[in-house]
């Protein structure tokens, strides 16, 4: 199948072909600290490790004994043949040798099994512990960390890096032991029979070990290169299939195929290159082995003829070589394992060793709610601490009392959402303080704080679980009746009731797909369910139509009577009824007061109000205020 000529010029086609992502993984690395740390984790299971390593040792010894036994058996046969001795005694001797070989083989099998199983088991136990630790760490790391780090990066660590680390015991520790015993013991045994022949028999070892290891590291680099190209290819395909309507609308199939072909060929070239390196390496290794064997055949044969060596010894040399062939190649695996464990383990520990920026102070106490008064006192804040750009909030002060509603409006990027983020301490303020009933949010425990503060996001994350599980997310022990009340308040109950499986209906790809408004209503139900004292709506009714929104607010009035409420919105109808409205611009409160007061004032708020009530003939709003950044 050759590619049809793309209809667009190739250089232009390249325009939308992304360069492959620069790798942040080093292909070749050695980090003794990381290896030591993982080895220590392995020895947290001392019995399994001892059993595994003991069995490795015994398996290696059994492996070494078998060629000897084969040689002995051959010598028996040859010796008896030459001397034509006692038939019965000869048969006994052979039976004895055979029994020894059988028993040794069985033991070798059993020891190898144990070695294999325990190596894998310790690896899996390490993986289990790392997985759990990573999971727990991800939960604890602050928002600012998750803002910086790509989700795909964390997933790679959680899947590939744990996978890479868990093989350390079997391919690293155990195999090094096996190899040293086999090569060392084999060398010693062969040398003790005949030094020259021993050297010849082992002559392929350093060559293969070095060659295979270099090739393996080269393959590793190529593997990463290939993975990167394939990742680009995956992205291009995913975007194409996800955006298939755009593709069809612009009739750009030929263009898309050309794009695909460019990357596909790039990846194929690397794939072929990899095959070349791999094939050259393995076939040359095998050839080196056979050359060694030929030399043994030649020299050994001459020695046998000169009576300097028995045929049995000669046979055992050949058997030794056969046994060493595979393990010597596996030296390359061990080298690879060192590199792989170093990188993968290093990347894991990098995350595991992080201290969350937002954490409980040593003397933190639980938040003690007496009334539920939220106060901002001269708060200033910026997301990027390097000091580039203006602060997101500048000297903001206000107070919300329980049962009262504060509305916050302003252009995009003016800092509205940031206010929502500072109350439950998703981020820490740079100056000033945020208090609830006089307690600085930094002085109380995070758990108690977040239990009392609910934030409803504009674009809520819903879980692939039943609607019931989604609504009770903050309190999985909640009564079903409480779930129902919350859903009713969010004006979603009628919809849920009509689903075939009601509250047990799954949300997400395989279940029901909710519209933007329904998702927001679900998020509202989720947030009003726990008995919080402060509730913040962060533009969380943007996709809900105005009539439904009104019904939600009427229903919530009951629930929120004794809670402090903050409503952030673009749509003024959502905040008009608030007790106080703050108009933010560039991080400052520029106007504040009730709706009527602000409209009468004739400032920013009044202009926005005019704009929104009737679209075409409304007042002009000066350009350039927004768009600088998506709302913080």
């Amino acid at each position, binding site marked *: 199948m*050759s590619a049809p000529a793309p209809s667009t010029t190739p250089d232009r086609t390249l*325009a*939308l072909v992304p360069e492959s992502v620069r790798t942040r993984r080093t292909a070749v690395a050695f980090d003794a600290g990381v290896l030591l740390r993982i080895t220590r984790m392995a020895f947290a299971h001392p019995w399994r490790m001892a059993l595994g390593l003991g069995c490795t040792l015994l398996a290696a010894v059994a492996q070494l004994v078998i060629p000897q036994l084969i040689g002995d058996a*051959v010598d028996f*046969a040859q010796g*008896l043949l030459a001397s034509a001795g006692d038939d019965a005694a000869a048969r006994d001797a052979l039976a004895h*040798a055979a029994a020894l*070989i*059988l*028993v040794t*083989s069985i033991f070798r*099998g*059993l020891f190898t099994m144990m070695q*294999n199983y325990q190596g894998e088991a310790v690896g*899996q136990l390490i993986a*289990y512990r790392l*997985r759990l630790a990573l*999971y727990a760490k991800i*939960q604890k790391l602050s928002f600012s960390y998750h803002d910086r780090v790509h989700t795909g990066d964390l997933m790679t660590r959680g*899947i590939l890096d744990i996978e890479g680390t868990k093989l350390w015991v079997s391919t690293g520790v155990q195999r090094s032991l096996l190899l040293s015993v086999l090569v060392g013991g084999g060398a010693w045994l062969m040398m003790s029979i005949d030094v020259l022949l021993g050297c010849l028999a082992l002559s392929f070892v350093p060559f293969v070990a070095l060659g295979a290891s270099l090739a393996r590291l080269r393959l590793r680099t190529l593997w990463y290169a290939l993975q990167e190209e394939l990742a680009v290819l995956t992205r*291009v395909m*995913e*975007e194409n*299939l996800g*955006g298939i*309507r*755009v*593709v069809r*609308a*612009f009739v750009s199939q030929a263009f898309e195929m050309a794009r*695909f072909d460019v990357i*596909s060929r790039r990846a194929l070239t690397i794939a072929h290159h990899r*095959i070349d390196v791999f094939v050259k390496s393995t076939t040359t290794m*095998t*050839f080196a082995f056979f*050359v060694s064997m*030929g030399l043994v055949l030649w020299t050994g044969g001459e020695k046998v003829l000169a009576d300097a060596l028995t045929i049995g010894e*000669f046979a055992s040399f*050949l058997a030794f070589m056969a046994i060493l062939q595979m393990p010597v190649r596996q030296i390359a695996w061990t080298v690879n394992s060192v590199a792989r464990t170093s990188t993968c383990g290093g990347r894991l520990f990098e995350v595991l060793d992080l201290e969350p920026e937002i954490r409980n102070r040593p003397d933190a106490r639980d938040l003690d709610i007496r009334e539920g008064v939220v106060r901002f006192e001269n708060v200033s804040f910026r997301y990027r601490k390097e000091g580039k750009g203006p602060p997101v909030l500048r000297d903001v002060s206000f107070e919300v009392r329980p049962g009262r509603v504060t509305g916050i409006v302003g252009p*995009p990027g003016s800092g509205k959402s940031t206010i929502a983020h500072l109350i439950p301490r998703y981020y820490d303020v740079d100056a000033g303080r945020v208090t609830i009933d006089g307690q600085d949010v930094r002085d109380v425990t995070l758990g108690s704080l977040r*239990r009392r503060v609910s934030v409803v996001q504009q674009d809520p*994350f819903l879980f692939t679980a*039943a609607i*019931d*599980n989604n609504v009770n*997310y903050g309190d*999985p*022990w909640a009564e079903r009746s409480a779930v129902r009340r919350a859903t009713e308040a969010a004006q979603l109950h009628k919809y849920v009731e009509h689903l075939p499986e009601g509250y047990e209906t*799954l949300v997400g790809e*395989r279940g029901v797909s909710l519209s933007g*408004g329904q998702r927001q209503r679900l998020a509202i139900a989720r947030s009003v369910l726990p008995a919080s004292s402060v509730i913040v709506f962060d533009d969380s009714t943007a*996709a809900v*139509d105005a009539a439904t929104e009104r019904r939600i607010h009427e229903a919530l009035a009951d629930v929120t009577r004794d809670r402090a409420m903050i409503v952030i919105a673009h749509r003024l109808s959502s905040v008009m009824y608030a007790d106080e409205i703050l108009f933010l611009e560039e991080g400052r409160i520029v106007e504040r007061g009730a709706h009527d007061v602000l409209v009468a004032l004739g400032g920013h708020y009044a202009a926005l109000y005019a*704009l929104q*009530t009737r*679209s075409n003939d409304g007042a002009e*709003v000066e350009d350039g205020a*927004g*768009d600088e950044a*998506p709302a913080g």
Partner: protein
Amino acid sequence: MKAAAPPSPTHGSPRAVVGSQVSFEEEMFGAAFDGRVVRRFWSFVTPHRRRLWIGVAAVLVFTLTQIAIPLVLRHAIDGALAVGGAGIEVLHWIVIAFFAVAALNYASNFTQELIVGRISGSLLFDLRRAMYAHLQHVSLSFMDKTEVGRLMSRLQGDVNALQEFLETSIFAIGDFVLLIGIITVLLFLDVRLGLLTLSVVPVLIVVRIVWLPPARRAFMRAREASSVVNGALAENVHGVRTIQEMGREAVNLDLFDDKAKDNLHAHLRASKFSSVMIPIVDTLTGIAMAIVIVVGGAMVLGQELGLGVMVAFLFYVQRFFDPIRSLTIQYSIMQRAMAAGQRIFEVLDVPVEVRDAPDAAPLPREARAIELDDVTFGYGPGRPVLRNVTLRVEPGETVALVGPTGSGKTSVTALVHRFYDVWNGAVRIGGHDVRNVRQSDLGAHVAMVLQEPFLFTGTVGDNIRYNKADATRGQVEAAARAVGAHDFIERLPEGYDTMLDQRGANLSLGQRQLLSFARALVADAPILVLDEATANVDSYTERRIQRALARLLEGRTAIVIAHRLATIREADRILVLRDGQLVEQGTHEDLIGLGGLYARLYRLNHASFDDFSAEDAVAAES
């Protein structure tokens, strides 16, 4: 790790879950052999046929050299070294023969590995390309009902399974020949000893057959457990903010621990299955060697067997378990490949419903009126979405399409672009039936702006230009300026060359919208079909979008699925759809005066028409 005290008084276990509750595993194994799949797969191999035969030949030669090596050793011992051997002269010849065999082994090994590796690599890419190319043209109704993730697993997992199949099946030929070869040589060297030694083979085969089904279940179970645990991890990563907001850390960690433990146990069990084969094979090897030594040794004593034959037997015995092992693995790979193949060819067999008619005519530039003539259309048989709809949009006119969710608005726009063919009636552009014109012309003639602005990973400039490869930078900038996107683009770190991460996640929704307008403007088509975004943007951006929209509509014939009152009021005419039928049309004032569905919807919601659903429409009527 024990979780901290949960936030509520605990009465039993929480009603909570982590991770996706549905397993995404597909049927992994099919029948071991499916002639249709193999035949169709073969058609992809055909272009590489010649090299493939060379590869197969190399596999055979390689296998023969493997069989030959112990034989050479046997001759070395019996012919030269053992009692009664011919001595040094013969030894030298044998050493030469050995090196010759080794060289042949090297050459054939190199050839087979290289050819097989390269062909199967190329095949992987060919198959993927064929599928991808097909997906560019298959009916959109297929694409609508198939998740992208599902298609991606065809394009990746299934293709890989077939590649693996090809790779292993060629080596399986080698294994098979090796097995047959070893058996033949053993029987040839000595029938009696050969039969005795081979008696362990059926034992191994029986053991493998008994072992395979439960082992495979254990391996699959382990795979599933892995995907479950990774799914839960993914949820933790993606939903981390919500988890922290709702204080679910402790409960989730507990639930995750259960899954991680389950995964641990599944893997330990799988590992038991793979470990247990080792001593069985080793024991059988030991038995075979013991037989060779006891029986063979006795035969050597009785002068019935050369010593070298005994040594050769000992070498062969250690070899013949490998091919049996790989052949049984091959069986599973074949089953997987057949299942994967069926799925791949299923995709390749999805019919392409919309194609150019053989005599498709070009569409003249001046064809600008849009006409739906008594159109009936639906996505599934028996469930029409549009029923006998007749409407006409005059050249240069802007028409707003309004109606509750599911009333058929999107279908109207899809038909104008001939994403689907109508059941009945006709769609005409400037009097030309869309079925009689070339699709490429139609694409150049009708620009489309989708509700969700879809951006590709690439620079801002490339996204505006998209497939209009010959658009200059000047044109791109002019379009951006016209829709008011130039200013914010200039403020991006690298202006028009700024890379958009993850489909423009670094832009706000309003900005993405403006870029998709600019893209449509560069395409410069005389007809525009636009599905207005429902998602709310702030009033400032909204204002900018309205201006851009006005600029985009200038001088074009346009159908706009409108959600915003401002857009609706600016249209020349409003068409109200309901349940697939055109129920009202006219200007805003006309329709308000009419007091019908439009008027009721208008009263319901004073600033925008977004997100009203069928239930709202019903509510509006009551």
